[in-house]
């Protein structure tokens, strides 16, 4: 896996790739909990002050016919990214620890791949950037802890996806002791 002469890593071995994906999935699950409970953006305009967490952003839609949209947004930016991380941990942690597959691991891994296009954390971050520009003229905005946690989460997810080889993970799961 490493160059014999200089020790440069040429390819990532299967156990190492699985360990990295698991580690990054745990990281993104922890970050998502920080995002949920910390303040996201703080807006000040004169004597008015509004403090929004990610949950507030989602509940902004939760009235009348907009309620389904609120649930969809909640799904796209919180539930599905978190579900994906938890499904990956559930399937891959036993492989890392060398124990038998947990029940339903195959279905869990299939869903982890299937949910990928529907987890839109990174798109939400671009949306935040656009909203900040729109508001820049009318108020001063401060980024809260959740903002930075969310940015980190997007980076972690992008990094994780570079190791998410479908064949590697499926072969790993299939050849694990059952």
């Amino acid at each position, binding site marked *: 896996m490493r160059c014999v002469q200089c020790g440069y890593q040429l390819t990532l071995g299967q156990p190492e790739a699985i360990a990295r994906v698991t580690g990054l999935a745990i990281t993104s699950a922890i970050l998502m909990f920080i995002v949920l409970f910390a303040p996201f953006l703080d807006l000040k305009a004169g004597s008015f002050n*509004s403090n*929004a967490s990610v949950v507030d952003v*989602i509940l902004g839609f939760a009235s009348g*016919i907009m309620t389904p949209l609120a649930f969809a947004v909640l799904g796209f930016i919180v539930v599905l990214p978190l579900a994906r991380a938890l499904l990956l941990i559930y399937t891959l942690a036993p492989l890392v620890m060398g124990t038998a597959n947990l029940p339903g691991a*195959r279905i869990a891994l*299939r869903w982890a791949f299937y949910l990928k*296009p529907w987890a839109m954390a990174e798109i939400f971050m671009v949306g935040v950037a*656009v909203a900040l520009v729109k508001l820049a003229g*009318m108020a001063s905005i401060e980024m809260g802890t959740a903002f930075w946690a969310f940015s980190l989460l997007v980076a972690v997810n992008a990094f994780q996806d570079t190791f998410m080889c479908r064949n590697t993970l499926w072969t790993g799961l299939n050849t694990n002791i059952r």
Partner: protein
Amino acid sequence: MDRSEHQHSLTTARDAGLVGCRSCGLVASPDESECPRCLSPLASRDETSLQHVWAWLIAGLIAFVPANVYPMIQTTQAFRTTESTIVGGVVDLIHHHAYGIAGIVFFASIVIPVAKFIVIAYLAILLGRGRGHDPHRLHTLHAIVEFVGRWSMIDVFVVAILVALVQFDVLASIQPGIAAISFALSVVFTMLSAQAFDPRLIWDTAPKSLNAEGEPAHGR
């Protein structure tokens, strides 16, 4: 994964009398109705694929109409209410001299959705006819449509953030409009439309590989 030296050298699972799993990539025996590795349903080709593509595409087009006609947000500032549509939002950003961001929103909410309708319809028509196309080009188009489609959601998230943050009673407040929900539905429908394609159909009409003697390698 690389293209081999022979440009059209291609053996599909179906040629080999097997079934490929779309979910995990395993090649299974045609007797299996469920993938032995990932337990998802197996079919050599999804014959109803194009019907699903057209149905979701038409649903997406229908939702796209109110998304552009009705306001995305209603801004109330000092007792005056202004409504802005998707295009209005882009114009607004240009007035703020935020040309880069205006470009991103214009691209994500207008260019991508319209281009997606055209490209999906084009793919569906060509695959429906089933001959006379370059499979590599169709494959690239399909991959782009699947990758890019979700980015149209940007505008919906922008509205969500604005609504949550700008709630200063009489001074200023922002309410979501009907277009927000229509636009979100349109994006979801077109994503489902792109996913409904069975990409294996693209390769079925590709020229079969020729071996050294110039005979088709099919069935060997």
